[in-house]
């Protein structure tokens, strides 16, 4: 008898084995079903609800799926042999309730138990996103989630440019971009999606060209339009996250109001000269909902009290910092990792090299997001000086 056979015989006697029906019942009762097969074995699908950890990563990644050693686990491979070795390893790690699925996925399928065809990364995607796959908080499941995700960027300007650039690189599957402007030479000091030879080109078109040359698989949806009360809800519907990189108060309030109504997290960024602010406004969050923009600022400043057109201006690098903080928050929201900036405002003062985190409270009387209040409707505000005249805007 060969050494591997001898070991298998020993494991068959030592490891608790369950039939597919019993494994299914255990999973319904809370056991985690770990599929240890390799990527090329998954074309026929996997048990619905199973978690995939390739055999080679089992010991390194099991605690993400089963942080508690008393968690019941059923290990599954193709035919029920490799899962015996894997189950033995988990027992040695200290897991107490480990079983191996007898007959593996073949038996599961033969019994007609529920099967899902998982979305798998292609070889090219595996290569492109390799550095994400090595990060436990992203991993294959997280990368697939990013590829499925849809982010809507309001503005392809100073903030939208760096944010969209990195979100495309990260593999966010769909990027919608709303901007009705065309590329102007004065934009190029900070709006890194655009190029000198595209001056005069619509920004959404220029943005798509740059993003798709970086990552051809990203779908870029162009909305060469200005947000208003009649189109905002239709444009936002279906997106997972909205990233507000606009340049004027009327649009900021419209973005806020639509996000409140649709329950979409609003990743807010704003800049002025050497300062920037970032927050995530998300009253629709299921656990620990946060304030909306109107809780913080119920009304925009009247034009005479807002910074004048002549005062506006920004260090070109500053929107890079703030736009990328927005991109990081968007990724955290899409992957549901870490603690998003919900209920907190992060302020960056470049000249002082200072980050300050301020606490934001919900306004219980907020006209738009207070619990139980009917949605008051969208408002098209007028604002005289919303774009610096030096910036080639409207």
């Amino acid at each position, binding site marked *: 008898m060969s050494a591997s056979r001898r070991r298998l015989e020993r494991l068959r006697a030592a490891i608790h084995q369950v039939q597919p029906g019993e494994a299914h019942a255990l999973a319904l009762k809370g056991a985690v079903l770990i599929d240890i097969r390799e990527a090329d074995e998954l074309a026929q699908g996997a048990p619905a609800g199973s978690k995939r950890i390739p055999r080679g990563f089992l010991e390194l990644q099991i605690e993400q799926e089963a942080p508690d050693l008393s968690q019941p686990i059923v290990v599954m491979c193709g035919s029920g042999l490799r899962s015996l070795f894997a189950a033995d390893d988990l027992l040695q790690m200290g897991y107490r309730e480990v079983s191996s699925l007898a007959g593996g996925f073949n038996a599961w399928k033969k019994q007609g138990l529920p099967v899902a065809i998982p979305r798998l990364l292609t070889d090219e995607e595996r290569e492109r996103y390799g550095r994400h796959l090595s990060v436990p908080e992203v991993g294959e499941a997280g990368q697939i989630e990013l590829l499925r995700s849809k982010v809507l960027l309001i*503005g*392809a*300007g*100073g*903030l*939208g440019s760096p944010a969209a650039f990195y979100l495309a690189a990260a593999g966010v599957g769909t990027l919608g971009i709303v*901007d009705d*402007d065309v590329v102007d030479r004065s*934009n190029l000091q*900070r*709006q890194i999606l655009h190029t000198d030879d595209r001056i005069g080109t619509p*920004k959404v078109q220029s943005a798509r060209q740059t993003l798709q040359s970086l990552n051809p698989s990203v779908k870029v949806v162009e909305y060469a339009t200005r947000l208003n009360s009649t189109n905002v809800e239709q444009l936002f519907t279906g997106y997972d996250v909205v990233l*507000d*990189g*606009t*340049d*004027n*108060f009327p649009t*900021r309030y419209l973005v806020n109001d639509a996000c409140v109504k649709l329950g979409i997290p609003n990743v807010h*960024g*704003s*800049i*002025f*000269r*050497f*300062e920037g*602010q970032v927050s995530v406004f998300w009253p629709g969050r299921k656990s620990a909902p946060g304030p909306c923009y109107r809780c*913080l*600022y*119920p*009304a*925009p*400043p009247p034009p005479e*009290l*807002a*910074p004048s057109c002549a*005062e*506006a201006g*920004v260090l070109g690098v500053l*929107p890079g910092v703030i736009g990328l903080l927005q991109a990081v928050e968007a990724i955290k929201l899409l992957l549901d990792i870490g603690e998003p900036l919900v209920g907190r*405002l992060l*302020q960056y*003062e470049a*000249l*002082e090299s200072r980050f*300050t*985190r*301020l*606490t*934001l*409270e919900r306004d219980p009387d907020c006209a738009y997001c207070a619990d139980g209040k009917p949605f008051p409707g969208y408002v098209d505000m007028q604002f005289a000086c*919303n*774009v*610096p005249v030096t*910036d080639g*805007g409207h």
Partner: protein
Amino acid sequence: MSKATIRIPTPLRSFTGGAGEVEVEGATVGQALHHLDRRHEGILSRVLDPDGRIRGFVNIYLGETNVKTLGGLDAALPDRAVISIVPAVAGGLR
């Protein structure tokens, strides 16, 4: 009477000759702001409305906490406190 530092946001630095921080004294946040206005006349009109209430596009923070949740301008000022004036900023700059 406590000593405090008020952080001035960029849009209001035209009132302070470009200074990003101003040292003030007062027993409450409101008193500290009025001391700021005595030192840099006119700045308070951008922060408070004619009735003396905090304007809707400005927030005042004592440390990390919005003074709205601490009793507003009457919030007591601990010594060496940092007050931040945080106005709404539109810019993303297209």
